[in-house]
């Protein structure tokens, strides 16, 4: 059952196949009228929370696509029930270096994201939406700006919608960092209260990733049963992946949750026998050997057995020619440089972790990363420790080679590391 009755006679039928989200992101500019023809109308925002919307999201079983995989409806319920007028943040900061799916959606399907944000506002009873985009993501910003002005002219929303360019630091897209920045502070994570309790202007704040919001729009349009026609029963629907590394066709793919990683790599053009390992979930994620990857399933439960999760949908294929130890040391050093420098266990712990990773690359035995996990305001130290541990396990052959003092076959670097951000934190 769909929440919004399809009232437009010329509306396109519910898409039966994948892609769903990416169907709108097919390259050319999708005008608001074209978007409306494909996506149908959206429910009106009311003064009070709209429980049927939250119910539909709950029945769809949608989980957040920013990395946390938290059930979206549960967050909406808490925000709707909080004290004070809620506010909605559409999080398109996408600080994960190997991820491009949010920028793609913002650039190619901005109206779908806006629909989702407005529906989320209706769901929780918010009168204000803030779309947060990396201030250096020019295409995403331009496109969202254009979509917003089209909307203001043709379909002026009854709630306030504004677009902001947020600082580009790795941790600035973390939800508490966004809230702190919008409150006039630095874009650095904070300790509780959490945004859903007390966020922007101390109001209950719903922070949802932009892909999550795009799914919200489609679920409300086509119904929970339609959403569930792909994916697994515990983790329904489709999800966006950013696939890169040793593949002939890198890019953003939309697959059912639970899809075979081996098939995804095949589709992206990974050459047989050319991979040494695959990173899933980004720099908070974990490494799978080529064998593990060929049989793994892209869901939180499927990846949990490999010690990781789907995260924000990053998949990087490491070619045999690259060295896992060198790649890990590069990433951990970059993560250490990305600390906000607020928590001692992170500022000192990641520096020491980075030193340990570098030492392995120079042929010294690895040390375990204790004293780091579970102690920071955000999950950066935990993510870095997990990343290194997973790398040292997966690349034990590379570790052995380094310990023997043998040379790496090739020093080609694969994992993308942006230049350290010179921006301020405001």
């Amino acid at each position: 059952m769909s929440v919004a009755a399809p009232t437009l006679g010329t509306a396109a039928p519910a898409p039966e196949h994948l892609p769903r989200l990416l169907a709108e992101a097919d390259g050319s500019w999708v005008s608001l009228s074209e978007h409306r023809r494909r996506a149908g109308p959206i429910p009106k925002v009311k003064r009070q929370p709209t429980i049927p919307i939250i119910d539909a999201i709950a029945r769809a079983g949608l989980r957040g696509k920013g990395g946390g995989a938290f059930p979206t409806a549960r967050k909406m319920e808490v925000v709707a029930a909080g004290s004070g007028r809620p506010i909605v943040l559409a999080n398109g900061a996408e600080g994960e270096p190997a991820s491009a799916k949010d920028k793609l959606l913002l650039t190619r399907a901005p109206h779908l994201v806006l629909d989702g944000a407005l529906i989320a506002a209706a769901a929780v009873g918010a009168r204000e939406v803030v779309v947060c985009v990396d201030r250096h993501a020019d295409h995403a910003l331009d496109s969202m700006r254009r979509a917003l002005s089209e909307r203001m002219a043709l379909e002026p929303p009854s709630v306030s919608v504004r677009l902001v360019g947020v600082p580009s630091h790795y941790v600035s897209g973390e939800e508490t960092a966004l809230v702190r920045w919008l409150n006039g502070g630095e874009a650095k994570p904070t300790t509780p209260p959490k945004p859903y309790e007390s966020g922007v202007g101390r109001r209950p704040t719903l922070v949802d990733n932009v892909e999550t919001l795009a799914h919200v729009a489609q679920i409300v349009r086509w119904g929970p049963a339609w959403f569930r026609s792909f994916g697994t029963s515990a983790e329904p629907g489709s999800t966006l992946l950013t696939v890169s590394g040793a593949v002939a066709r890198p890019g953003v793919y939309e697959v059912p949750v639970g899809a075979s990683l081996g098939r995804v790599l095949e589709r992206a053009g990974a050459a047989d026998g050319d991979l040494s390992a695959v990173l899933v979930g980004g720099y908070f994620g974990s490494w799978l050997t080529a064998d593990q990857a060929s049989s793994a399933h892209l869901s939180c439960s499927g990846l949990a057995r490999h010690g990781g999760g789907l995260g924000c949908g990053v998949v990087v294929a490491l070619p045999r020619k690259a060295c896992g130890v060198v790649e890990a040391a590069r990433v951990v050093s970059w993560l250490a440089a990305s600390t906000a420098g607020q928590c001692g266990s992170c500022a000192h712990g990641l520096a020491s972790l980075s030193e340990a990773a570098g030492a392995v690359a120079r042929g010294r035995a690895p040390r375990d990363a204790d004293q780091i996990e579970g102690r920071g305001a955000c999950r950066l130290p935990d993510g870095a420790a997990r990343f290194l541990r997973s790398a040292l396990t997966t690349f034990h052959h590379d570790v052995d080679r380094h310990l023997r003092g043998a040379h790496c076959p090739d020093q080609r670097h694969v994992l993308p590391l942006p230049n350290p951000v010179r921006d301020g934190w405001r």
Partner: protein
Amino acid sequence: MSLRLRVDPIVCDAHGVCAELFPERVSLDDWGYPIVDSDPIGRDLLDDARRAVAACPVLALRLEEP
């Protein structure tokens, strides 16, 4: 009502007073920052915990309900 010790990692400045006053539940990492045991504080240790909380020069240490 059981209380637990919690440190605010952003506020903490590694003065180390907590570990000195309440070594039963607080140790220091390699860099002098506290590693706090989050088990509930029993009646016998509550006074020590309160003393450590009161002595933190930056008010980073707290006793909280779980």
